[in-house]
């Protein structure tokens, strides 16, 4: 039983790593640009397919392929922000219209991926597939270690960037009070575009790791996005740190439920517990905006 619990802990952490990368990026975009970036899921798939294109179809070295995928994906996300979201925000300011546009983009990108690479699934070679460590009766794949390390470093780097750089602080200032931020000269387009770029860059390793574990399909981003949204709500809308913590909780909670019940019920159970949590703590763990509004 100890073996099972430890093995499930490893699996839970590995899954939480993926959720964490997606949720951190999603939370950053949501808090800075105030856009429910539904197409984040499609960009997730796009980055996976671009890595496949460069690494396997073009035969480039793996690291270079991932870097190119990251650059192109970020470029696509920034273009989406500047050419679609920003004009819509300026024209109507209605967040519902922007969500609709984002859903439309989601389908457009997914269908484009299907047209180019088909829907049958592409297989991304994992150079670390055979590397597995054994501690007692618990197996830890090198891929898991990489996933967890990248997630922790990616999240930590994002938080450090937001706290320790001038641009990061400007993004936080704009997130907390856009009107005042404009008054002091913070350029909304710039902070929004940077948020999109960082949020997308975090997606790339998550998409590659998902591709290693299963296959690349145009709809592969929807599952992680669902977890990311749940993590953002639990962590507190407006908090990048909270989203990361929410994702970790979600992964570990699912693993803990799998210890006692068939794994089929783990996601449903985890989401149910999270729902109850949100009822009791509507601002989430670190809900800056909600808490400050409540205090006023």
């Amino acid at each position: 039983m100890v073996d099972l619990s430890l093995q499930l802990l490893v699996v839970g952490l590995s899954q939480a790593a993926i959720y964490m990368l997606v949720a951190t990026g999603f939370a950053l975009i949501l808090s800075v640009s105030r856009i429910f970036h539904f197409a984040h899921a499609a960009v997730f798939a796009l980055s996976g397919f671009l890595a496949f294109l460069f690494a396997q179809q073009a035969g480039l070295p793996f690291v270079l392929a991932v870097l190119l995928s990251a650059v192109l994906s970020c470029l696509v996300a920034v273009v989406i922000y500047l050419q679609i979201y920003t004009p819509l925000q300026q024209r109507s300011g209605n967040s519902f219209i922007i969500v609709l546009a984002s859903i439309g983009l989601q389908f457009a990108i997914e269908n484009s991926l299907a047209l180019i690479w088909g829907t049958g699934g592409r297989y991304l070679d994992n150079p670390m597939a055979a590397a597995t460590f054994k501690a007692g009766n618990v197996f830890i794949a090198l891929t898991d270690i990489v996933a967890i390390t990248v997630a922790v470093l990616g999240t930590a780097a994002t938080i450090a960037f937001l706290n320790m750089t001038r641009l990061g602080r400007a993004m936080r200032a704009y997130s907390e009070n856009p009107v005042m931020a404009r008054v002091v000269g913070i350029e909304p387009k710039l902070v929004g575009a940077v948020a999109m770029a960082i949020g997308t860059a975090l997606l790339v390793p998550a998409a590659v790791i998902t591709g290693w574990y299963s296959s690349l399909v145009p709809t592969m981003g929807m599952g992680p996005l669902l977890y990311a949204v749940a993590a953002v709500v639990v962590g507190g809308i407006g908090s990048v740190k909270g989203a990361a913590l929410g994702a970790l909780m979600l992964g570990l909670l699912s693993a803990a439920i799998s210890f006692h019940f068939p794994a089929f019920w783990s996601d449903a159970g985890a989401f149910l517990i999270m729902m109850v949590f949100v009822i009791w703590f509507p601002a989430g763990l670190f809900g800056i905006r909600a808490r400050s509004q409540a205090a006023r």
Partner: protein
Amino acid sequence: MTMQPEHVSDRTAENAMARVSGWKLNRLRSRTLALTAMVAAALSCAAAPALAQARQKFNFAVTFPLTGIAASQGETASKAVKIALQEINDHDYIGGVELVPFILDSEAKPDIGVRALEQAITVNGAGYVITGYSSVSAAQAPIAERSRVVLVNVGGASPVLSNLSPWFFNAIPLTHLQIPILLEEIIEVQHKKSVALLFRDDDLGRGIRSLFGASAQALGGKLVAEESYLPGTNDFRRQLARIRAGSPDMVYIAGVATEIGSIIGQAASLGLTPLWTSYGAYNHKATIELGKQAADGGIYTNPANFGANLKTLPRYEQMLSAWRTAYGSTSDLDYIAGQIYLGVYLLADTLKTLKSSGKALTPENIRDAMRTTKYETVTGPMTFDKHQDALTSIAIYRLEKSEFKPYKVYSSDDVSAINARVVKQ
């Protein structure tokens, strides 16, 4: 004299009427257009005797995934239809009847499959439809019955498909016939007693679950773990960690083809390396590409394309040769291709029988003939039992060095005997 089956002729007339109504609505005013229409009508009348001498056309459809997670199978299915029709139509196999195919997308989803079937019947005038996937077939069966069209499942293997409707046939041995064969080999021959099941929570998976444990027990085995997952899942590691805790000698995967490789690859990362088993879904390139070495040695059951001596059956050999000629190699030929080819030939053979006995080529007559005809197929002799399930030979195949190879063949009599023993115990 019309050469069309009745249901096709009626619909053709309806379609023509609809077209005429459409023209009326468009209010053709131009004299030129009217004149063109008159000339076209005159030409049609002149051409009528020539058409009467042409071969009778029979419309049929295939509803298979052309998009979605299993799109690759639809592509293979289309290729199989093409080569079957080249043989049938080009050589006038039926004798005065030409088969006209309509290949429609089911996305391997029940609702889309139902829509595709409705289109096949109402728009394309199909009197015989080939389908696959358990959930899709189960959803389509009532539509086929209501429309009085023959629906033939060649790919879905769930036991829930047995005895669904008088208009529904299973041209693949369902898993309730295949699983006892596999379990006998594992438990009694290979002496691997502790078995586990990982199933997809759909009609196929639930159907297999309903008999897997009891069949294993009847043969002296023990079910040590049982886990399930939702369609669309791509991370199976929680389920696999729990299965590993049961230390099974063998794990049966009741999922779709594109999932099996992921499952085996993820299991290897958790140190779970039992004997992997499944049904025909194991025979897919994803099993090799994602499962890698861990998938090697895995065994599965499927309709046999081989005789007891493991020699390729004549009709399957014919198909291999045609495939090679048409597509250059047989590397992309999987069991689905054979099953689709079989489904087209079931229709051709049935129509040939009806023609020779002077009966009309109606869906009713096709259905009745299928109940009594003994077919020679790519899986050997095939008949349909009282539930309209195929009785044919089944083989156990093994993945060896990235090649799917048969290693044991059971005739339909062997299959019946082993199943009777399991039921009795």
